[in-house]
Protein backbone atom coordinates (compact mmCIF):
# COMPACT_ATOMS: atom_id res chain seq x y z
CA UNK A 1 0.00 0.00 0.00
CA UNK A 2 1.46 3.37 -0.96
CA UNK A 3 2.15 6.01 1.67
CA UNK A 4 -1.11 7.81 2.47
CA UNK A 5 -1.34 11.58 2.09
CA UNK A 6 -2.43 11.92 5.69
CA UNK A 7 -1.43 9.61 8.51
CA UNK A 8 -2.54 10.71 11.95
CA UNK A 9 -1.79 8.73 15.10
CA UNK A 10 -3.16 9.50 18.56
CA UNK A 11 -3.52 13.21 17.81
CA UNK A 12 -4.42 15.31 20.85
CA UNK A 13 -5.00 18.96 21.33
CA UNK A 14 -5.64 20.58 24.68
CA UNK A 15 -6.10 24.24 25.49
CA UNK A 16 -5.15 25.70 28.82
CA UNK A 17 -7.64 28.31 29.95
CA UNK A 18 -6.77 31.21 32.19
CA UNK A 19 -7.86 29.59 35.44
CA UNK A 20 -5.64 26.51 35.01
CA UNK A 21 -8.50 24.38 33.73
CA UNK A 22 -7.71 22.36 30.64
CA UNK A 23 -10.04 21.87 27.71
CA UNK A 24 -9.48 18.83 25.52
CA UNK A 25 -10.43 19.61 21.93
CA UNK A 26 -9.01 16.47 20.36
CA UNK A 27 -8.71 13.34 22.44
CA UNK A 28 -6.64 10.84 20.47
CA UNK A 29 -7.52 10.72 16.79
CA UNK A 30 -6.19 8.17 14.30
CA UNK A 31 -6.90 8.72 10.63
CA UNK A 32 -5.38 7.80 7.26
CA UNK A 33 -6.38 9.50 4.04
CA UNK A 34 -5.13 7.92 0.84
CA UNK A 35 -4.09 9.84 -2.23
CA UNK A 36 -7.07 10.78 -4.38
CA UNK A 37 -9.54 10.17 -1.62
CA UNK A 38 -12.41 12.53 -0.77
CA UNK A 39 -13.18 12.54 2.96
CA UNK A 40 -15.90 14.50 4.72
CA UNK A 41 -15.72 15.34 8.40
CA UNK A 42 -19.02 15.82 10.21
CA UNK A 43 -19.93 16.65 13.73
CA UNK A 44 -21.76 19.16 15.85
CA UNK A 45 -20.06 22.27 17.07
CA UNK A 46 -17.54 21.44 19.80
CA UNK A 47 -17.01 17.97 18.37
CA UNK A 48 -13.42 18.83 17.49
CA UNK A 49 -13.85 18.91 13.72
CA UNK A 50 -12.59 22.48 13.40
CA UNK A 51 -9.60 21.70 15.60
CA UNK A 52 -8.84 18.68 13.45
CA UNK A 53 -9.10 20.75 10.29
CA UNK A 54 -6.79 23.41 11.73
CA UNK A 55 -4.24 20.75 12.61
CA UNK A 56 -4.56 19.16 9.18
CA UNK A 57 -4.09 22.61 7.69
CA UNK A 58 -0.88 23.16 9.66
CA UNK A 59 -2.39 26.30 11.14
CA UNK A 60 -1.91 24.86 14.61
CA UNK A 61 0.32 22.33 16.31
CA UNK A 62 -0.95 19.26 18.20
CA UNK A 63 -0.26 18.86 21.90
CA UNK A 64 0.58 15.22 21.35
CA UNK A 65 0.66 12.63 18.58
CA UNK A 66 2.03 12.49 15.08
CA UNK A 67 0.82 13.91 11.80
CA UNK A 68 2.52 12.71 8.65
CA UNK A 69 1.66 14.84 5.65
CA UNK A 70 3.08 13.39 2.45
CA UNK A 71 5.55 11.36 4.52
CA UNK A 72 6.88 14.17 6.76
CA UNK A 73 5.97 14.43 10.41
CA UNK A 74 4.84 18.03 10.52
CA UNK A 75 3.75 17.87 14.18
CA UNK A 76 7.19 19.03 15.25
CA UNK A 77 7.65 21.71 12.62
CA UNK A 78 8.29 25.30 13.64
CA UNK A 79 6.27 28.27 12.47
CA UNK A 80 8.33 29.01 9.36
CA UNK A 81 8.38 25.36 8.33
CA UNK A 82 4.62 25.12 8.77
CA UNK A 83 4.21 28.24 6.62
CA UNK A 84 6.27 26.55 3.95
CA UNK A 85 4.17 23.37 4.15
CA UNK A 86 0.94 25.39 3.88
CA UNK A 87 2.27 27.24 0.90
CA UNK A 88 3.63 24.20 -0.95
CA UNK A 89 1.39 21.27 -0.10
CA UNK A 90 -1.99 22.62 0.97
CA UNK A 91 -4.88 24.34 -0.70
CA UNK A 92 -7.55 26.04 1.42
CA UNK A 93 -11.19 26.65 0.60
CA UNK A 94 -13.03 28.62 3.29
CA UNK A 95 -16.70 29.07 4.03
CA UNK A 96 -16.44 32.86 3.65
CA UNK A 97 -14.13 32.67 0.58
CA UNK A 98 -11.46 34.82 2.28
CA UNK A 99 -10.43 36.68 -0.81
CA UNK A 100 -8.32 39.80 -0.27
CA UNK A 101 -10.71 42.66 -1.11
CA UNK A 102 -8.21 45.12 -2.55
CA UNK A 103 -6.75 42.61 -5.03
CA UNK A 104 -8.21 41.61 -8.39
CA UNK A 105 -9.30 38.07 -9.26
CA UNK A 106 -5.98 37.33 -10.93
CA UNK A 107 -3.96 38.85 -8.10
CA UNK A 108 -5.89 36.83 -5.53
CA UNK A 109 -5.07 33.64 -7.38
CA UNK A 110 -1.40 34.66 -7.47
CA UNK A 111 -1.04 35.22 -3.72
CA UNK A 112 0.28 31.72 -2.83
CA UNK A 113 2.86 31.92 -5.63
CA UNK A 114 4.18 35.15 -4.19
CA UNK A 115 5.14 33.40 -0.97
CA UNK A 116 6.70 30.55 -2.94
CA UNK A 117 8.90 33.14 -4.64
CA UNK A 118 7.56 31.80 -7.91
CA UNK A 119 7.23 34.77 -10.21
CA UNK A 120 7.85 32.80 -13.39
CA UNK A 121 5.88 33.45 -16.55
CA UNK A 122 4.73 29.83 -16.47
CA UNK A 123 3.26 30.31 -13.02
CA UNK A 124 1.42 33.41 -14.12
CA UNK A 125 0.10 31.63 -17.18
CA UNK A 126 -1.14 28.91 -14.84
CA UNK A 127 -3.12 31.47 -12.85
CA UNK A 128 -4.95 32.50 -15.99
CA UNK A 129 -5.61 28.88 -16.91
CA UNK A 130 -7.06 28.22 -13.47
CA UNK A 131 -9.28 31.29 -13.74
CA UNK A 132 -10.49 29.87 -17.08
CA UNK A 133 -11.00 26.47 -15.45
CA UNK A 134 -13.33 27.89 -12.79
CA UNK A 135 -15.11 29.94 -15.45
CA UNK A 136 -13.81 33.40 -14.56
CA UNK A 137 -11.41 33.91 -17.44
CA UNK A 138 -13.24 37.08 -18.44
CA UNK A 139 -13.26 38.60 -14.95
CA UNK A 140 -9.54 38.68 -14.21
CA UNK A 141 -9.53 42.37 -13.34
CA UNK A 142 -12.65 42.34 -11.21
CA UNK A 143 -12.47 42.82 -7.48
CA UNK A 144 -14.13 40.36 -5.12
CA UNK A 145 -16.87 42.89 -4.31
CA UNK A 146 -17.93 42.88 -7.95
CA UNK A 147 -18.50 39.11 -7.93
CA UNK A 148 -21.34 36.94 -6.63
CA UNK A 149 -20.74 34.54 -3.74
CA UNK A 150 -20.46 31.56 -6.08
CA UNK A 151 -17.97 33.36 -8.28
CA UNK A 152 -15.91 34.37 -5.27
CA UNK A 153 -15.78 30.80 -4.08
CA UNK A 154 -14.64 29.69 -7.52
CA UNK A 155 -11.81 32.23 -7.36
CA UNK A 156 -10.90 30.75 -3.97
CA UNK A 157 -10.86 27.26 -5.50
CA UNK A 158 -8.57 28.45 -8.30
CA UNK A 159 -6.33 29.98 -5.64
CA UNK A 160 -6.30 26.67 -3.73
CA UNK A 161 -5.07 24.88 -6.85
CA UNK A 162 -2.39 27.30 -7.95
CA UNK A 163 0.41 25.62 -6.00
CA UNK A 164 -0.64 22.15 -7.20
CA UNK A 165 -1.29 20.99 -3.62
CA UNK A 166 -1.00 17.52 -2.17
CA UNK A 167 -4.18 18.08 -0.17
CA UNK A 168 -7.15 20.40 -0.46
CA UNK A 169 -8.88 21.37 2.78
CA UNK A 170 -12.37 22.76 2.52
CA UNK A 171 -14.19 24.26 5.49
CA UNK A 172 -17.93 24.37 4.80
CA UNK A 173 -17.23 25.54 1.25
CA UNK A 174 -20.92 25.90 0.40
CA UNK A 175 -22.08 27.21 3.77
CA UNK A 176 -22.69 30.71 2.46
CA UNK A 177 -24.13 29.77 -0.92
CA UNK A 178 -27.67 29.28 -2.19
CA UNK A 179 -28.58 25.84 -3.47
CA UNK A 180 -28.01 26.59 -7.18
CA UNK A 181 -24.48 27.92 -6.70
CA UNK A 182 -23.86 25.25 -4.08
CA UNK A 183 -24.44 22.59 -6.73
CA UNK A 184 -22.05 24.38 -9.07
CA UNK A 185 -19.28 24.59 -6.51
CA UNK A 186 -19.77 20.99 -5.37
CA UNK A 187 -19.62 19.85 -8.98
CA UNK A 188 -16.33 21.68 -9.34
CA UNK A 189 -14.97 20.01 -6.20
CA UNK A 190 -16.14 16.61 -7.46
CA UNK A 191 -14.38 17.26 -10.70
CA UNK A 192 -11.13 18.02 -8.89
CA UNK A 193 -11.50 14.81 -6.96
CA UNK A 194 -12.13 12.91 -10.19
CA UNK A 195 -8.90 14.36 -11.52
CA UNK A 196 -7.10 12.75 -8.60
CA UNK A 197 -7.04 15.55 -5.99
CA UNK A 198 -7.14 14.51 -2.35
CA UNK A 199 -9.85 16.45 -0.54
CA UNK A 200 -10.80 16.72 3.11
CA UNK A 201 -13.96 18.70 3.72
CA UNK A 202 -15.69 19.75 6.90
CA UNK A 203 -19.45 20.07 6.56
CA UNK A 204 -22.56 19.72 8.61
CA UNK A 205 -24.72 19.05 5.57
CA UNK A 206 -25.37 15.32 5.02
CA UNK A 207 -26.09 15.80 1.34
CA UNK A 208 -22.77 17.49 0.84
CA UNK A 209 -20.99 14.85 2.90
CA UNK A 210 -22.65 12.09 0.91
CA UNK A 211 -20.58 13.03 -2.15
CA UNK A 212 -17.38 12.01 -0.30
CA UNK A 213 -15.86 8.52 -0.35
CA UNK A 214 -15.86 8.33 3.42
CA UNK A 215 -17.56 10.33 6.16
CA UNK A 216 -15.77 10.78 9.49
CA UNK A 217 -18.25 11.41 12.31
CA UNK A 218 -16.80 13.19 15.31
CA UNK A 219 -18.03 13.83 18.80
CA UNK A 220 -16.28 15.07 21.95
CA UNK A 221 -12.90 15.20 20.31
CA UNK A 222 -12.97 11.65 19.05
CA UNK A 223 -13.86 9.81 15.90
CA UNK A 224 -17.06 7.95 16.63
CA UNK A 225 -17.62 6.29 13.32
CA UNK A 226 -16.20 6.20 9.81
CA UNK A 227 -18.82 5.58 7.18
CA UNK A 228 -18.00 4.43 3.67
CA UNK A 229 -20.50 5.91 1.24
CA UNK A 230 -21.99 4.42 -1.86
CA UNK A 231 -19.93 6.66 -4.11
CA UNK A 232 -16.74 5.17 -2.75
CA UNK A 233 -14.74 3.52 -5.50
CA UNK A 234 -11.71 2.62 -3.44
Amino acid at each position, binding site marked *: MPEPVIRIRDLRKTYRLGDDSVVTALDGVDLDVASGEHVAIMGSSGSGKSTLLNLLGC*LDRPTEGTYHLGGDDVAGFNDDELSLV*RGKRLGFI*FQSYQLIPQLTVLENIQVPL*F*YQHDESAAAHARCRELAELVGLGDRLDHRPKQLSGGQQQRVAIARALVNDPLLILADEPTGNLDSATEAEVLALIDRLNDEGRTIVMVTHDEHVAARADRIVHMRDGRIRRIETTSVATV
Partner: protein
Amino acid sequence: MFRRFQRIVALGVKNLFLHKVRSLLTMLGIVFGVGSVIAMLAVGEGASEQASESIARLGSTNVIIESVKPPEGPASQQSAQQNSNSFGLFERDLRRIASTIPAVQAVHPESEKTDEVTSPATQVQAILRATTSGAPEVRNLARVHGRFFTDLEEERGAAVCVLSPALRRKLFPFGNAVGKAVRIEGDFYTVVGIYRPGDAGEGTTDGADREDLLYLPYRSARSRVSDFAYSQTDYDTLVVRAKDTEHVPAVGAAIEALLESTHDLKDYRIIVPLELLAQARETQRLFNIILGSIAGISLLVGGIGIMNIMLATVTERTREIGVRRALGARKRDIVVQFLVETVVISLTGGLLGIAIGVGIPQIISSLTEVPTIVTPVSVVLSLAISLLIGIVFGLYPARRAAELDPIEALRH
Protein backbone atom coordinates in the same frame (compact mmCIF):
# COMPACT_ATOMS: atom_id res chain seq x y z
CA MET B 1 14.74 39.65 -5.77
CA PHE B 2 14.38 43.20 -7.06
CA ARG B 3 11.16 42.31 -8.87
CA ARG B 4 9.84 40.86 -5.68
CA PHE B 5 10.70 43.99 -3.74
CA GLN B 6 9.04 46.02 -6.45
CA ARG B 7 5.87 44.00 -6.01
CA ILE B 8 5.88 44.46 -2.25
CA VAL B 9 6.29 48.22 -2.67
CA ALA B 10 3.62 48.32 -5.37
CA LEU B 11 1.27 46.51 -3.00
CA GLY B 12 2.07 48.98 -0.25
CA VAL B 13 1.41 51.96 -2.49
CA LYS B 14 -1.82 50.36 -3.68
CA ASN B 15 -3.06 49.87 -0.15
CA LEU B 16 -2.30 53.50 0.67
CA PHE B 17 -4.17 54.70 -2.38
CA LEU B 18 -7.22 52.78 -1.20
CA HIS B 19 -7.45 55.26 1.67
CA LYS B 20 -6.17 58.45 0.11
CA VAL B 21 -7.43 60.91 2.68
CA ARG B 22 -6.34 58.78 5.59
CA SER B 23 -2.87 58.22 4.16
CA LEU B 24 -2.47 61.90 3.47
CA LEU B 25 -3.56 62.89 6.98
CA THR B 26 -1.26 60.27 8.41
CA MET B 27 1.79 61.61 6.64
CA LEU B 28 0.96 65.24 7.48
CA GLY B 29 3.00 65.16 10.68
CA ILE B 30 6.09 64.09 8.76
CA VAL B 31 5.37 66.55 5.95
CA PHE B 32 5.30 69.53 8.29
CA GLY B 33 8.09 68.23 10.46
CA VAL B 34 10.48 67.74 7.57
CA GLY B 35 9.26 70.86 5.75
CA SER B 36 9.77 73.16 8.71
CA VAL B 37 13.18 71.70 9.53
CA ILE B 38 14.52 72.24 6.03
CA ALA B 39 12.98 75.70 5.77
CA MET B 40 14.28 76.84 9.15
CA LEU B 41 17.72 75.39 8.49
CA ALA B 42 17.79 77.20 5.16
CA VAL B 43 17.00 80.53 6.85
CA GLY B 44 19.52 79.86 9.60
CA GLU B 45 22.17 78.80 7.14
CA GLY B 46 21.54 81.89 5.05
CA ALA B 47 21.85 84.15 8.06
CA SER B 48 25.01 82.51 9.30
CA GLU B 49 26.52 82.54 5.82
CA GLN B 50 25.84 86.24 5.63
CA ALA B 51 27.34 86.78 9.07
CA SER B 52 30.48 84.78 8.42
CA GLU B 53 30.89 86.44 5.04
CA SER B 54 30.83 89.91 6.52
CA ILE B 55 33.18 88.79 9.25
CA ALA B 56 35.48 87.12 6.77
CA ARG B 57 35.55 90.30 4.74
CA LEU B 58 37.23 91.92 7.72
CA GLY B 59 40.00 89.40 7.12
CA SER B 60 40.83 86.37 9.17
CA THR B 61 44.46 87.41 9.71
CA ASN B 62 43.44 90.89 10.77
CA VAL B 63 42.96 92.50 14.14
CA ILE B 64 40.91 95.65 13.79
CA ILE B 65 41.19 98.56 16.21
CA GLU B 66 38.57 101.26 16.06
CA SER B 67 38.55 104.67 17.64
CA VAL B 68 35.56 105.18 19.87
CA LYS B 69 34.41 108.14 21.90
CA PRO B 70 35.58 107.48 25.45
CA PRO B 71 32.84 106.68 27.95
CA GLU B 72 31.55 109.72 29.89
CA GLY B 73 32.22 109.72 33.60
CA PRO B 74 34.07 111.50 36.39
CA ALA B 75 37.37 109.94 35.38
CA SER B 76 36.97 110.82 31.75
CA GLN B 77 36.19 114.46 32.43
CA GLN B 78 39.52 114.85 34.10
CA SER B 79 41.41 113.27 31.23
CA ALA B 80 39.38 115.05 28.61
CA GLN B 81 40.59 118.35 30.01
CA GLN B 82 44.19 117.30 29.60
CA ASN B 83 43.82 116.05 26.05
CA SER B 84 41.53 118.78 24.81
CA ASN B 85 39.00 117.08 22.54
CA SER B 86 41.09 114.45 20.87
CA PHE B 87 40.63 110.77 21.47
CA GLY B 88 41.22 107.46 19.77
CA LEU B 89 44.05 106.20 17.66
CA PHE B 90 47.04 108.28 16.68
CA GLU B 91 50.13 107.88 14.65
CA ARG B 92 52.11 106.98 17.76
CA ASP B 93 49.83 104.02 18.34
CA LEU B 94 50.44 102.83 14.81
CA ARG B 95 54.17 103.11 15.24
CA ARG B 96 54.18 101.36 18.60
CA ILE B 97 52.15 98.48 17.31
CA ALA B 98 54.24 98.11 14.17
CA SER B 99 57.53 98.23 16.03
CA THR B 100 56.89 96.32 19.25
CA ILE B 101 54.75 93.35 18.29
CA PRO B 102 56.87 90.91 16.27
CA ALA B 103 54.04 88.89 14.72
CA VAL B 104 52.60 91.98 13.04
CA GLN B 105 53.15 92.05 9.32
CA ALA B 106 51.61 95.42 8.58
CA VAL B 107 49.51 98.10 10.17
CA HIS B 108 47.11 99.74 7.86
CA PRO B 109 45.25 102.92 8.87
CA GLU B 110 41.83 103.90 7.65
CA SER B 111 39.42 106.76 8.19
CA GLU B 112 36.03 107.34 6.78
CA LYS B 113 33.93 110.42 6.15
CA THR B 114 30.90 111.16 4.07
CA ASP B 115 31.13 113.95 1.55
CA GLU B 116 29.90 115.13 -1.78
CA VAL B 117 31.73 113.89 -4.85
CA THR B 118 31.18 115.73 -8.10
CA SER B 119 31.79 114.53 -11.61
CA PRO B 120 31.03 116.37 -14.84
CA ALA B 121 27.76 114.45 -14.94
CA THR B 122 26.45 114.61 -11.39
CA GLN B 123 27.02 115.02 -7.68
CA VAL B 124 26.83 112.05 -5.32
CA GLN B 125 26.97 111.63 -1.55
CA ALA B 126 29.72 109.05 -1.11
CA ILE B 127 31.79 107.43 1.61
CA LEU B 128 35.36 108.69 1.40
CA ARG B 129 37.79 106.15 2.72
CA ALA B 130 41.25 107.46 3.45
CA THR B 131 43.60 104.53 3.33
CA THR B 132 46.99 103.30 2.19
CA SER B 133 48.24 101.52 -0.86
CA GLY B 134 48.03 98.26 1.11
CA ALA B 135 44.21 98.40 1.18
CA PRO B 136 43.54 95.91 -1.68
CA GLU B 137 45.52 93.26 0.14
CA VAL B 138 44.38 93.95 3.68
CA ARG B 139 40.77 94.68 2.84
CA ASN B 140 40.38 92.07 0.13
CA LEU B 141 39.60 94.48 -2.67
CA ALA B 142 39.31 93.12 -6.18
CA ARG B 143 40.46 95.02 -9.20
CA VAL B 144 37.80 95.80 -11.76
CA HIS B 145 39.64 98.35 -13.81
CA GLY B 146 42.83 100.41 -13.66
CA ARG B 147 45.06 100.25 -10.60
CA PHE B 148 45.17 101.21 -6.94
CA PHE B 149 47.19 104.23 -5.87
CA THR B 150 50.84 103.54 -5.18
CA ASP B 151 53.13 103.99 -2.17
CA LEU B 152 54.65 106.94 -3.88
CA GLU B 153 51.34 108.65 -4.54
CA GLU B 154 50.44 108.04 -0.94
CA GLU B 155 53.67 109.50 0.32
CA ARG B 156 53.31 112.56 -1.87
CA GLY B 157 49.67 112.97 -1.00
CA ALA B 158 48.80 112.84 -4.64
CA ALA B 159 45.35 113.87 -5.82
CA VAL B 160 44.24 110.45 -6.98
CA CYS B 161 41.33 108.23 -6.02
CA VAL B 162 39.81 104.82 -6.62
CA LEU B 163 36.04 104.25 -7.00
CA SER B 164 33.76 101.37 -6.16
CA PRO B 165 31.78 100.08 -9.16
CA ALA B 166 28.54 101.44 -7.71
CA LEU B 167 29.94 104.93 -7.38
CA ARG B 168 31.51 104.75 -10.82
CA ARG B 169 28.12 103.93 -12.36
CA LYS B 170 26.64 107.01 -10.71
CA LEU B 171 29.42 109.43 -11.41
CA PHE B 172 30.26 108.23 -14.91
CA PRO B 173 27.15 106.58 -16.29
CA PHE B 174 28.60 106.64 -19.80
CA GLY B 175 32.07 105.58 -20.79
CA ASN B 176 35.30 105.11 -18.95
CA ALA B 177 36.03 106.63 -15.55
CA VAL B 178 39.75 105.90 -15.27
CA GLY B 179 41.78 108.98 -16.12
CA LYS B 180 38.85 111.32 -15.51
CA ALA B 181 38.65 113.69 -12.57
CA VAL B 182 36.19 114.07 -9.73
CA ARG B 183 35.89 117.02 -7.38
CA ILE B 184 35.78 116.92 -3.59
CA GLU B 185 35.60 120.25 -1.74
CA GLY B 186 37.09 122.21 -4.55
CA ASP B 187 40.02 119.88 -5.22
CA PHE B 188 40.21 117.63 -8.23
CA TYR B 189 41.28 114.00 -8.00
CA THR B 190 42.19 111.77 -10.88
CA VAL B 191 40.42 108.40 -10.91
CA VAL B 192 43.14 105.76 -11.30
CA GLY B 193 41.11 102.59 -10.85
CA ILE B 194 37.90 100.79 -10.00
CA TYR B 195 38.05 98.26 -7.13
CA ARG B 196 35.25 96.39 -5.53
CA PRO B 197 35.00 94.77 -2.10
CA GLY B 198 36.21 91.34 -3.03
CA ASP B 199 35.64 87.71 -2.20
CA ALA B 200 35.33 87.22 1.49
CA GLY B 201 36.09 83.55 1.39
CA GLU B 202 33.19 81.72 -0.25
CA GLY B 203 31.25 83.73 -2.80
CA THR B 204 30.42 87.40 -2.83
CA THR B 205 27.44 89.23 -1.53
CA ASP B 206 26.19 91.93 -3.80
CA GLY B 207 25.23 93.95 -0.72
CA ALA B 208 28.75 95.31 -0.36
CA ASP B 209 28.89 95.98 -4.08
CA ARG B 210 26.16 98.55 -3.79
CA GLU B 211 28.14 100.88 -1.53
CA ASP B 212 29.27 104.19 -2.96
CA LEU B 213 32.91 104.13 -1.93
CA LEU B 214 35.82 106.37 -2.84
CA TYR B 215 39.34 105.43 -1.71
CA LEU B 216 41.97 108.11 -1.49
CA PRO B 217 45.52 108.25 -0.08
CA TYR B 218 45.66 108.98 3.62
CA ARG B 219 47.96 111.90 3.31
CA SER B 220 45.89 113.48 0.57
CA ALA B 221 42.76 113.24 2.69
CA ARG B 222 44.46 114.72 5.76
CA SER B 223 45.86 117.63 3.81
CA ARG B 224 42.99 118.45 1.47
CA VAL B 225 39.65 117.30 2.86
CA SER B 226 38.50 119.44 5.76
CA ASP B 227 36.61 116.69 7.56
CA PHE B 228 39.75 114.59 7.73
CA ALA B 229 41.98 117.55 8.55
CA TYR B 230 39.95 118.65 11.56
CA SER B 231 39.22 115.16 12.81
CA GLN B 232 39.64 114.65 16.55
CA THR B 233 41.53 111.49 15.90
CA ASP B 234 44.22 110.45 13.48
CA TYR B 235 42.64 107.16 12.45
CA ASP B 236 39.15 105.79 12.63
CA THR B 237 40.53 102.34 12.21
CA LEU B 238 43.80 100.51 12.31
CA VAL B 239 43.86 97.20 10.56
CA VAL B 240 46.70 95.15 12.01
CA ARG B 241 47.65 92.24 9.86
CA ALA B 242 49.24 89.28 11.62
CA LYS B 243 51.79 87.09 9.84
CA ASP B 244 49.26 84.25 9.78
CA THR B 245 46.02 83.18 11.45
CA GLU B 246 47.95 81.27 14.11
CA HIS B 247 49.35 84.53 15.48
CA VAL B 248 46.06 86.38 15.52
CA PRO B 249 45.07 85.68 19.14
CA ALA B 250 48.55 86.64 20.40
CA VAL B 251 48.57 89.83 18.35
CA GLY B 252 45.12 90.67 19.66
CA ALA B 253 46.23 90.21 23.24
CA ALA B 254 49.45 92.16 22.70
CA ILE B 255 47.58 95.11 21.19
CA GLU B 256 45.13 95.05 24.05
CA ALA B 257 47.96 95.20 26.59
CA LEU B 258 49.81 97.87 24.66
CA LEU B 259 46.82 100.16 24.26
CA GLU B 260 45.75 99.65 27.84
CA SER B 261 49.11 100.81 29.13
CA THR B 262 49.36 103.82 26.80
CA HIS B 263 45.78 105.10 26.74
CA ASP B 264 44.24 106.65 29.83
CA LEU B 265 40.77 106.07 28.55
CA LYS B 266 39.19 103.22 26.78
CA ASP B 267 38.82 105.20 23.57
CA TYR B 268 39.36 102.22 21.29
CA ARG B 269 37.74 98.94 20.48
CA ILE B 270 39.58 95.81 19.39
CA ILE B 271 37.81 93.48 16.99
CA VAL B 272 39.26 90.09 16.18
CA PRO B 273 37.30 88.75 13.17
CA LEU B 274 38.62 85.27 13.82
CA GLU B 275 37.04 85.28 17.27
CA LEU B 276 33.81 86.71 15.90
CA LEU B 277 33.76 83.92 13.35
CA ALA B 278 34.19 81.33 16.07
CA GLN B 279 31.39 82.99 18.04
CA ALA B 280 29.13 83.04 15.00
CA ARG B 281 29.80 79.35 14.44
CA GLU B 282 29.02 78.59 18.05
CA THR B 283 25.76 80.54 17.81
CA GLN B 284 24.88 78.67 14.66
CA ARG B 285 25.64 75.37 16.36
CA LEU B 286 23.33 76.23 19.26
CA PHE B 287 20.65 77.34 16.84
CA ASN B 288 20.96 74.03 15.02
CA ILE B 289 20.68 72.06 18.24
CA ILE B 290 17.52 73.90 19.26
CA LEU B 291 16.11 73.50 15.79
CA GLY B 292 17.01 69.84 15.80
CA SER B 293 15.19 69.31 19.08
CA ILE B 294 12.04 71.00 17.83
CA ALA B 295 12.24 68.99 14.64
CA GLY B 296 12.83 65.84 16.62
CA ILE B 297 9.68 66.42 18.64
CA SER B 298 7.52 67.14 15.62
CA LEU B 299 8.89 64.10 13.82
CA LEU B 300 8.30 61.99 16.92
CA VAL B 301 4.68 63.14 16.98
CA GLY B 302 4.43 62.39 13.27
CA GLY B 303 5.88 58.94 13.82
CA ILE B 304 3.43 58.19 16.62
CA GLY B 305 0.59 59.29 14.34
CA ILE B 306 1.77 56.84 11.71
CA MET B 307 2.08 54.05 14.25
CA ASN B 308 -1.42 54.73 15.51
CA ILE B 309 -2.91 54.47 12.02
CA MET B 310 -0.89 51.37 11.22
CA LEU B 311 -2.18 49.67 14.37
CA ALA B 312 -5.73 50.48 13.25
CA THR B 313 -4.89 49.18 9.78
CA VAL B 314 -3.60 45.93 11.20
CA THR B 315 -6.84 45.43 13.12
CA GLU B 316 -8.86 46.33 10.06
CA ARG B 317 -6.95 43.87 7.91
CA THR B 318 -6.75 41.02 10.40
CA ARG B 319 -8.54 38.66 8.02
CA GLU B 320 -6.21 39.50 5.17
CA ILE B 321 -3.30 38.68 7.45
CA GLY B 322 -4.93 35.36 8.36
CA VAL B 323 -5.47 34.52 4.69
CA ARG B 324 -1.92 35.39 3.75
CA ARG B 325 -0.59 33.26 6.60
CA ALA B 326 -2.79 30.33 5.54
CA LEU B 327 -1.54 30.67 1.97
CA GLY B 328 2.08 30.32 3.00
CA ALA B 329 3.24 33.72 4.29
CA ARG B 330 5.78 33.46 7.07
CA LYS B 331 5.74 35.89 9.96
CA ARG B 332 8.57 37.82 8.42
CA ASP B 333 6.66 38.16 5.13
CA ILE B 334 3.88 39.89 7.06
CA VAL B 335 6.38 42.08 8.90
CA VAL B 336 7.96 43.13 5.61
CA GLN B 337 4.58 43.88 4.04
CA PHE B 338 3.44 46.23 6.80
CA LEU B 339 6.86 47.73 7.31
CA VAL B 340 7.05 48.62 3.64
CA GLU B 341 3.63 50.26 3.89
CA THR B 342 4.75 52.38 6.82
CA VAL B 343 7.99 53.32 5.12
CA VAL B 344 6.08 54.28 1.98
CA ILE B 345 3.93 56.62 4.11
CA SER B 346 6.86 58.17 5.93
CA LEU B 347 9.04 58.49 2.83
CA THR B 348 6.23 60.03 0.81
CA GLY B 349 5.64 62.40 3.70
CA GLY B 350 9.34 63.14 3.77
CA LEU B 351 9.42 63.89 0.04
CA LEU B 352 6.41 66.20 0.30
CA GLY B 353 8.07 67.83 3.29
CA ILE B 354 11.25 68.37 1.31
CA ALA B 355 9.24 69.94 -1.51
CA ILE B 356 7.68 72.34 0.99
CA GLY B 357 10.95 72.88 2.82
CA VAL B 358 12.77 73.75 -0.41
CA GLY B 359 9.91 75.88 -1.71
CA ILE B 360 9.30 78.08 1.33
CA PRO B 361 12.87 79.51 1.55
CA GLN B 362 12.67 80.45 -2.13
CA ILE B 363 9.44 82.30 -1.50
CA ILE B 364 11.01 84.01 1.53
CA SER B 365 14.08 85.00 -0.48
CA SER B 366 12.06 86.32 -3.37
CA LEU B 367 9.75 88.37 -1.17
CA THR B 368 12.31 89.67 1.31
CA GLU B 369 16.00 90.42 1.50
CA VAL B 370 16.56 87.47 3.82
CA PRO B 371 19.09 85.13 2.24
CA THR B 372 18.31 81.41 2.46
CA ILE B 373 20.44 78.43 1.64
CA VAL B 374 18.98 74.93 1.38
CA THR B 375 21.88 72.63 2.08
CA PRO B 376 21.93 69.23 0.37
CA VAL B 377 22.85 67.73 3.73
CA SER B 378 19.55 68.83 5.27
CA VAL B 379 17.62 67.26 2.39
CA VAL B 380 19.47 63.96 2.51
CA LEU B 381 19.26 63.91 6.30
CA SER B 382 15.50 64.55 6.23
CA LEU B 383 14.99 61.70 3.82
CA ALA B 384 17.08 59.38 5.97
CA ILE B 385 15.15 60.42 9.07
CA SER B 386 11.83 59.83 7.29
CA LEU B 387 13.02 56.36 6.39
CA LEU B 388 14.12 55.74 9.95
CA ILE B 389 10.77 56.91 11.33
CA GLY B 390 8.97 54.52 8.98
CA ILE B 391 11.05 51.62 10.20
CA VAL B 392 11.00 52.50 13.90
CA PHE B 393 7.30 53.28 14.14
CA GLY B 394 6.29 50.62 11.64
CA LEU B 395 8.04 47.79 13.40
CA TYR B 396 5.64 47.49 16.31
CA PRO B 397 2.42 47.37 14.22
CA ALA B 398 4.11 45.02 11.75
CA ARG B 399 5.18 42.71 14.56
CA ARG B 400 1.67 42.79 15.98
CA ALA B 401 0.34 41.79 12.57
CA ALA B 402 2.83 38.95 12.23
CA GLU B 403 2.15 37.60 15.71
CA LEU B 404 -1.58 37.24 15.10
CA ASP B 405 -2.78 33.66 15.38
CA PRO B 406 -3.80 32.71 11.82
CA ILE B 407 -6.83 30.75 13.03
CA GLU B 408 -8.12 33.68 15.08
CA ALA B 409 -7.31 36.08 12.28
CA LEU B 410 -9.31 34.07 9.74
CA ARG B 411 -12.30 34.05 12.06
CA HIS B 412 -12.14 37.82 12.62
